[in-house]
């Protein structure tokens, strides 16, 4: 069993996983490397090409040390590699935490609605349809202008916006499983509603929700880039989207300012999409086994 399962996980799974782990590692370890601060400007190396050597303070002190800009610097003399490392934090926080919020809230709401039906379902549908009908950009604008565009607020808002989608996936899957005979059988054995939801239905619908969550992760990383162009992304912190947006002014002179972060974002989004796709094929195959 273990062998046949592994053989279905080819390179198309391990490469995305490796890349995601790598990016995650970069985001977590960004502070520990011998790198300048993400917003340190080396005025002597503005727009330096990859491989150029400059002098920057390392490790928080004032003393300058030689440092190789492996990916060059931007027009303000900031190290692109450092900013990519720190930008990964914003992208991954937004991309991973927001779907988890949506998964928890929308998922449990959807499961409850699909299982209990009745007024709970109609209320939940009314609320989620309202959220879906409300223009997301307007909500984000309002949040940024009235409450402030911190990473926390942005993550919370984007998480809130993914609730309806997760609600629908959870409800649709719960509806089909709630009708299954094994749920009736569990009920006939005296299982309570809570235990039916948690032990009978959740393990069956979780995979579908996880696959969907991976696609949402990929989507939200792109959304962060789009928001940067509107000036709605996290201010005062490097982010991939922000780097792409800043670089667009110098596309003819320094195309790498936009293309390097865009490529990193591309690989990350591709990885999450591939992973979600593979996982879905894997669960589909398992479903047909049953």
């Amino acid at each position, binding site marked *: 069993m273990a062998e046949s399962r592994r053989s279905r996980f080819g390179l198309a799974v391990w490469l995305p996983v490796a890349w995601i782990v790598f990016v995650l590692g970069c985001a977590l370890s960004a502070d520990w490397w011998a790198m300048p601060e993400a917003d340190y400007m080396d005025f002597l190396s503005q727009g330096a090409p990859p491989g150029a050597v400059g002098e920057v303070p390392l490790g928080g002190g004032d003393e300058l040390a030689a440092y190789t800009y492996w990916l060059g610097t931007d027009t303000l003399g900031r190290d692109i590699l450092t900013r990519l490392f720190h930008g990964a934090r914003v992208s991954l926080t937004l991309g991973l935490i927001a779907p988890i919020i949506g998964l928890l809230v929308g998922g449990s709401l959807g499961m409850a609605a699909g299982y209990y039906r009745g007024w709970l379902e109609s209320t939940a549908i009314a609320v989620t349809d309202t959220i879906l009908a409300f223009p997301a950009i307007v909500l984000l604008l309002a949040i940024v202008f009235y409450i402030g565009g911190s990473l926390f607020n942005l993550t919370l808002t984007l998480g809130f916006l993914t609730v309806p989608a997760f609600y629908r996936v959870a409800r649709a899957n719960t509806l089909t499983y709630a009708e299954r*005979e094994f749920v009736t059988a569990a009920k006939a054995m*005296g*299982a309570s509603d809570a235990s039916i939801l948690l*032990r009978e239905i959740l393990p*069956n619908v979780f995979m579908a929700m996880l696959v969907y969550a991976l696609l949402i992760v990929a989507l939200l990383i792109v959304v962060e880039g789009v928001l940067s162009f509107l000036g709605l992304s996290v201010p005062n912190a490097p982010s991939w989207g922000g780097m792409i947006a800043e670089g667009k002014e110098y596309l003819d002179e320094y195309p790498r300012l936009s293309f390097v972060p865009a490529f990193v974002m591309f690989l990350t989004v591709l990885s999450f999409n591939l992973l979600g796709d593979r996982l879905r094929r894997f669960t589909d195959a398992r479903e047909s086994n*049953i």
Partner: protein
Amino acid sequence: MSGSPQDPRDGPLLAVENLRTHFHTERGVVRAIDGVSFTLDRGRTLGVVGESGSGKTVLVRTLLGLLPSTAHVGEDARVMFDGRALDIRSEKALRRVRGRHIAMVFQDPMTSLNPVMTVGAQIMESLRYHLGMGRGAARERAVALIESVGIPMPARRVDQYPHQLSGGLRQRIAIAIALACEPKLLIADEPTTALDVTIQAEILDLLARQQAERHMAMILITHDLGVVAGRTDDIAVMYAGKIVERAPTARLFTAMRMPYTRALMDSIPRLEAPPNTPLKTIGGRPPDLIDPPAGCRFAPRCARADDKCHRAEPPLAGAEAGHQFACWRPLDTAEATP
């Protein structure tokens, strides 16, 4: 096989009176169960026979409250279980008996087991829930149960998933789950219909053996008279939401009075019949349960029906003890012999 003398409580294990279950649909009210009464003594087996749509499954699902929310159970139904009144309209009351005192085996073991839980976990679930067993004790008991339903290598099977087992083994697991808490009543809803013919007898024998060992009462639902023939004490024949004849098994097979029972019996293919004998079928279709015929519900399909049959509904009554039938023009004993 009658109620054992050491049983502290007298009287039947289950007494159902005037059970009605209606479904509210867009076309109208479907009277799926329309006034069913029966009793079942401790340790005995009642076979419920009838064609598809006669209400067999709805009957037992009503007793356990497993119907969809469109179902409506009549208020004047009275159910006594184990000497106490059981309010089958109350989810709370039903939850106390489900699994613990009344357990059920379903038709299709391919769908009645949770695909993502090991079979052991599914057996342990009710042990821990109803009997408050610890993980270790419940596991030991699960292994013993798997062994008792005739599955080899129980210690290995306990950690397997349903898709790793064949249909017959799955149904044995479903039986093990049902037996876990030593229920007083086991309901088997067409437990062999979805199985290979070669396995059907094994499963039925297993049920009979477990029932005898545990002194458990059983309701065996089937559309196959051959299944109930040697394995039940009594048989109730259902037609269009009503019990139309009820008798001890041997008597029903030799001295049936209701023409419908006779028609069911005649539709069983016979080995001794010469080749190419056309199968006897029952002409017509079961009545529409939204607007059933005024008189006897079988009258439109019955060769013996006369005016009275079409006008008035016959009550379920009988001259002899234990044998009741609902018919104005019953077969006499000579005709009944097949």
